[in-house]
């Protein structure tokens, strides 16, 4: 079958099971959009307000489903607008294929209109990228891109296609959907590690996004139940274990539970599973886990010994490794250890409820109560993100979407739209703040156009809360550029775009607003007024340990 490059591209997307793409048209991708028009009954294209929103939407779609997200942008500014979205996906190991148009081959390198060397720009933030040189290569490159994005540790791949190649014709030979490949796990010391766990007195598990990506929640649960091991999760693994499950200590790290951090500090064996000892968890690399022997399990060999030197390591897919490990794990009880942790739990930070004003934990709690545990919660970045991580009742592994590694303010709205398109029957809640929302609030028009009923809950303290919190603690309350005094009327903005908006100042008002929002058939913004002195607590400052925890 003779097709042009654009039709080949769309056909390969279909081969790969893609039915949803996000993007924004432009000169260099006119041919591609012409093909999308032709195939619009098979592939749904969501056009956002800005390419960054489209990239985050593809990311949110991927995180919510586990499938590879696809985003399309034109050359030059279209391509550069994807950069933050691609970097966000890269840092959090999200499978994504980004397709950019470029100027025709003969104009490349001539500083042509809307020309940029996007392959060079995205080299450090993609697993790999391709510049297509001839139409005959296109189909296989796209297939390879899908394979790379989803194999091993997932991540984004970019394909840059000059405009002439989207028009050139060649024979299209259909192929099967590619199968992602994981490296074979290296299990030679698995019995020794199991022995270590079986003999441990104070075992502890610290797990991250790798467990979620691998779909290893069941295996992890079996391990912590059978061997009676308390476990704490990173931001990327919220929901892998239910919030109320035995042995789930909750969030670890800078704003993690005191009990989780204390347990990490006191453990004799620490199993780090699908995680990378980021500086938001291993705040002090000399002292983190210094009382324990460390077993590191991760699919990416370069994570082993990168930050913390592990005593034992296994590289491989977490699910495969845990399945094998479980064969040697014996039932154990650690009553003294769990009793000690229960004691630490009494020191965990517990904010007080109020009825007359909204406190952050009550915003999260009330929203979660009305939207339900099955809802998908997406956040932006800052204080509200950590409050959401701390106080949501997480029960599902793919229901909490947040930019953990890159910490991208402005991630949330696009990602929430992507999640809503992937899961049209679920309630999608976008927690944001007045700071983050101002970065990409333009995507409200996308939500209105496509009738995506995303509920945006704004934790509005009228300041850049996290920046201000640090300035308060470490800079003697010199609030440099963190109190912008914006006068935005969120209800009016929401309505002006064609959505609905409410203002809430008490938990009761929020409950009323949420009840209306979950029934709405379009986007709703809920402006929740909170005090600017509210802090994310507890907090361990960078470079310090659990002994330096700040509680107020």
């Amino acid at each position, binding site marked *: 079958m003779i097709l042009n490059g654009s039709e080949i591209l769309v056909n390969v997307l279909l081969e790969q099971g893609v039915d949803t793409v996000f993007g924004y048209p432009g000169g260099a991708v006119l041919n591609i959009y012409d093909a999308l028009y032709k195939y619009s009954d098979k592939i749904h294209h969501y056009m956002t307000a800005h390419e960054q929103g489209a990239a985050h939407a593809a990311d949110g779609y991927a995180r919510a489903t586990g499938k590879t997200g696809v985003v399309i942008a034109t050359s030059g500014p279209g391509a550069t607008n994807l950069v933050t979205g691609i970097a966000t996906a890269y840092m959090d190991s999200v499978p994504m294929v980004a397709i950019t148009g470029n100027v025709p081959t003969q104009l490349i390198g001539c500083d042509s209109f809307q020309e940029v060397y996007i*392959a*060079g720009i995205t*080299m*450090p933030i993609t*697993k*790999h990228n391709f*510049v297509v040189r001839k139409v005959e290569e296109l189909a296989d490159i796209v297939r390879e891109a899908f394979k*790379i994005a989803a194999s091993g540790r997932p991540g984004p791949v970019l394909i840059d296609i000059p405009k002439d190649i989207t028009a050139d014709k060649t024979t299209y030979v259909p192929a099967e959907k590619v199968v992602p490949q994981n490296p074979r796990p290296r299990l030679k010391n698995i019995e020794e590690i199991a022995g270590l766990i079986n003999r441990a007195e104070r075992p502890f598990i610290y797990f991250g996004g790798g467990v979620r990506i691998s779909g290893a929640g069941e295996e992890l649960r079996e391990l912590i139940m059978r061997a009676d091991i308390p476990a704490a999760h990173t931001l990327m693994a919220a929901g892998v274990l239910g919030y109320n499950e035995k042995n789930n200590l909750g969030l670890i790290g800078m704003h993690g539970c005191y009990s989780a951090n204390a347990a990490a500090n006191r453990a004799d064996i620490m199993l780090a599973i699908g995680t990378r000892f980021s500086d938001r968890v291993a705040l002090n690399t000399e002292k983190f886990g210094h009382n324990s022997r460390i077993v590191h399990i991760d699919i*990416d*060999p*370069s994570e*082993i*010994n*990168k930050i913390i*030197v592990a005593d034992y390591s296994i590289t491989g897919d977490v699910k495969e490794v845990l399945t094998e490990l479980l064969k040697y794990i014996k039932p154990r009880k650690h009553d003294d250890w769990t009793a000690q942790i229960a004691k630490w739990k009494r020191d965990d930070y517990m904010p007080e409820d109020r009825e007359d004003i909204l406190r952050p934990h009550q915003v999260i709690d009330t929203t979660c109560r009305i939207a339900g545990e099955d809802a998908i919660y997406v956040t932006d970045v800052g204080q509200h993100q950590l409050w959401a991580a701390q106080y949501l009742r997480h029960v599902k592994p793919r229901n909490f979407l947040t930019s953990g590694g890159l910490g991208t303010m402005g991630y949330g709205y696009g990602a929430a739209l992507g999640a809503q398109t992937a899961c049209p029957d679920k309630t999608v809640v976008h927690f944001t703040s007045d700071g983050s929302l101002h970065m990409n609030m333009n995507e409200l028009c996308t939500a209105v156009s496509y009738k995506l009923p995303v509920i945006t809950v704004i934790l509005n303290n009228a300041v850049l809360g996290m920046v201000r919190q640090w300035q308060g603690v470490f800079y003697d309350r010199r609030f440099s550029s963190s109190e912008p005094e914006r006068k935005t009327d969120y209800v009016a903005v929401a309505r002006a775009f064609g959505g609905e908006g409410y203002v809430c100042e008490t938990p009761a008002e929020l409950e009323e607003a949420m009840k209306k929002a979950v029934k709405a058939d379009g986007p709703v913004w809920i402006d929740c007024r909170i005090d600017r002195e509210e802090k994310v607590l507890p907090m361990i400052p960078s470079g310090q340990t659990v002994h330096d925890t700040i509680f107020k």
Partner: protein
Amino acid sequence: MRKQCMVLLVENNAGVLARVSSLFMQRGFNIDSLTVSSTDSPNISRITVMTTGDNRTFSQIMKQTSKLVEAKMIFSVEPEFSLIREILMVKFSSDTEELEELKKIIERFGAHIIDMSYGCFVAELTESPQRVDDFLEAVKSYRMIEICRSGAIALERGLIDYELN
């Protein structure tokens, strides 16, 4: 900290050198020298990188570069079991009273004079990085007009079977 040598067999694609060097720069790995050349296989290029760092950093470099899709094989080269060579060319002024003395040093190091022009001549030395350093030290008091030194290339001794990814 010690000097280490790694060899990358990579797909012979446009941009592969940029990927390797960008990765080194991004991760703060130091490149002392780098050479790229074609191999007996038209699809494969060979990159030799000399770097300085502790063993943990070196192992991290190896693992990060292994993640490059176009890297087919990566290995470290141990100087004891390998031949590591650099090429040095030095242009000396021949307007010196100690010309004979200089020529003796050149000879002693196994270097050759490969060009003689009016007022100057060029000596060439192909040797291990250490010997090249030693030579430069030995001739530093003579009038050097210009020097040019290649990156290292390395080959392990004996029969070794490589399996490409």
